[in-house]
């Protein structure tokens, strides 16, 4: 479906290329295949160039959807997601997605339209100061005042988005710059100052200390975070932990870093993590954190986290070192380079068995397995996710929204590869799922894409169903409907004496008919035959919306109450 970009012959020879033409040309040079966007007044020149050059723009139905879709695209591939939105409300609608990308370190370049340079600061129609608004939620932002600077600024933005710790970059494009002729294009001297900080040399002395300490450890543990995925270091991590027999805990966003069935994999740690993962944090005597930022949903009580361990922390972002947890061995490094070093510079290849420690972890797993009560009269959300795991052989790209279903998906889907879970980890953005699934499908169409979403979250970005219809995307949308904002209700039940303030929906749209209105096939699962219905849905190569009414008061367990240390879990048998 991707059009060829190089259609400049469509321009009459005597046409002068505009800033917008240069912009698209530069995107092509950066390897951009498609953008997610929504037109408007300030980006009329840009969209005129999109039209003339037949550039691939995925027309979303709301700017928030454009950014989440670009995030899904970037998360699924590691490439930079690109967004076009107009000025004013177009740009402010994009903020949630930009903030989401900032917290989850997702590389994006977002072009916001702006009123013409002469009108800036005069409260012009659809003018906002988007540079000030986006400053705290971007790695960097730019406003281009001269068309001759445009290529250099775009090049710098693309370099910044993926240098070091990835993140979003905004380029604000005044309308006159987008339409200016480029006849006097780039004289070679631009105002853009191009200097990405070079990566520092590996701290080999510290890595060596880590290695020594690891070999002495009786109860070593590796925490592998999103940084391992972002650095494409999963093969290196797997080689490292198998070489030395180190058990591994993942975070939410790094699920798939080891296959779910790997004997060294303890599952996700943190607030809704597995029993053995959280107990391992408590008991381990050496913790090697690679690429996780000790988020408060993981280290639920920083002061009491891993109280018996010496802690090493490898992160590409120096400001993460010592931010939450004081570490004895801090290393600023790319995860892949550090892992390569740790594996290849091993002074001994004697495989440490850690027999007692691994047996302890196995015992915990067997004594307190992740489970739920089954009930044939009801459709349990955990069972739906397990069934989808079977139907997709654990290989689907799993996209989630935010809430209880997100945690159940993390707990019960058998992830086995990196970039397989696409979820809003840091910002916890309801409404993320549906547009992110669109981006993930467009990025890697050969993979089955399954969206698990709640009845609350789907209503936040439901308009993007129209994009699925328009582009005929095969996405399986599974609404786990408890007629409530389930996770908030769970907290109210546990910590606010069941005062369910504003979390129970008194009425809902008919999701089956809603899907129909968008031209998407839909089916409601019945407790008696839901497995067969689900199998039929997955047998077809077309999108479908599946609604499952789940028990309204189902809780996510295990759960660590906020502020409690990891070993204090609720809902463990």
């Amino acid at each position, binding site marked *: 479906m991707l059009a060829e970009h190089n259609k400049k012959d469509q321009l009459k020879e005597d046409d002068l290329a505009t800033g917008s033409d240069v912009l698209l040309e530069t995107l092509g040079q950066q390897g951009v295949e498609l953008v997610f966007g929504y037109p408007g007044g300030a980006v009329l020149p840009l969209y005129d160039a999109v039209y003339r050059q037949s550039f691939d723009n995925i027309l979303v139905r709301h700017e928030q959807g454009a950014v989440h879709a670009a995030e899904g695209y970037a998360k699924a591939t590691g490439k930079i997601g690109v967004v076009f939105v107009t000025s004013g409300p177009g740009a402010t609608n994009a903020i949630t997605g930009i903030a989401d990308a900032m917290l989850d370190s997702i590389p994006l370049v977002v072009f916001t339209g702006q009123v013409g340079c002469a009108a800036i600061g005069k409260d012009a129609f659809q003018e906002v100061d988007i*540079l000030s608004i986006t400053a705290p939620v971007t*790695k960097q932002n730019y*406003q281009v005042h001269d068309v001759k600077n445009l290529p250099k600024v775009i090049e710098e933005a693309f370099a910044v988005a993926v240098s070091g710790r990835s993140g979003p970059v905004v380029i604000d494009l005044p309308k006159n710059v987008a339409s200016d002729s480029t006849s006097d294009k780039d004289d070679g001297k631009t105002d853009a100052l191009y200097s*990405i*900080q070079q990566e520092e040399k590996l701290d080999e002395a510290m890595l060596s200390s880590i290695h020594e300490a690891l070999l002495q450890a009786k109860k070593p543990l590796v925490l592998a975070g999103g940084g391992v995925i972002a650095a494409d270091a999963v093969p290196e991590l797997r080689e490292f932990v198998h070489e030395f027999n180190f058990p591994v805990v993942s975070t939410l966003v790094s699920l798939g870093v080891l296959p779910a069935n790997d004997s060294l994999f303890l599952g996700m740690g943190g607030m809704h993590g597995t029993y053995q993962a959280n107990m391992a944090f408590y008991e381990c005597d050496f913790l090697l954190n690679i690429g996780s930022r000790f988020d408060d949903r993981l280290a639920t009580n920083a002061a009491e986290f891993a109280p018996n361990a010496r802690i090493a922390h490898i992160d590409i972002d120096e*400001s993460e070192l010592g*931010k939450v947890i004081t570490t004895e061995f801090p290393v600023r490094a790319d995860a892949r380079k550090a892992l390569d070093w740790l594996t290849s510079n091993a002074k001994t290849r004697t495989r440490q068995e850690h027999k007692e420690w691994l047996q302890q972890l196995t015992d915990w797993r067997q004594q307190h397995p992740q489970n739920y009560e089954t009930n044939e009269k009801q459709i349990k959300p955990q069972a739906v996710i397990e069934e989808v795991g079977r139907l997709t052989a654990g290989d689907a790209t799993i996209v989630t929204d935010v809430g209880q279903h997100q945690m159940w998906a993390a707990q019960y889907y058998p992830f086995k590869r990196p970039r397989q879970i696409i979820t809003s980890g840091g910002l916890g953005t309801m409404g993320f799922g549906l547009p992110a699934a669109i981006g993930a499908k467009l990025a890697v169409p050969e993979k089955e894409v399954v969206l698990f979403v709640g009845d609350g979250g789907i209503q936040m970005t439901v308009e993007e169903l129209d994009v699925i219809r328009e582009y005929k995307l095969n996405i399986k949308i599974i609404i786990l409907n408890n007629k409530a904002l389930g996770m908030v209700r769970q907290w109210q039940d546990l910590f606010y004496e069941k005062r369910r303030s504003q979390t129970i929906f008194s009425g809902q749209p008919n999701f089956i008919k809603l899907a129909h209105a968008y031209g998407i096939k839909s089916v409601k699962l019945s407790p008696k035959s839901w497995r067969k219905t689900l199998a039929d849905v997955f047998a077809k190569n077309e999108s479908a919306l599946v609604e499952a009414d789940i028990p309204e008061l189902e809780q996510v367990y295990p759960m660590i109450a906020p502020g409690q240390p990891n070993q204090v879990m609720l809902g463990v048998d």
Partner: protein
Amino acid sequence: MHEIIECKMKNRVGVLNRLTGLLTRRNINIESALIASTPDNQLAVAKFRIYVAQAQEREHLKRVIAKQIDVLSVNWCTDDFTKNSGTN
């Protein structure tokens, strides 16, 4: 304690906004500031006198400022403008 943090950065529109935003977010008041550009206008140096309660916060603040794309270096100075020996 009251201290002075010195940032050398590219002299471009908005860079100060980013820096002060990092302080605002952490509820740190700027008690005095001194900002000047280099003669060629390419770089600027800013000194802020601020109060930071904890040592851990101090180091973290330095690092989040240092990772801004336009910031070239960050140093803590003493809280005396007459002494300019940059230390880490």
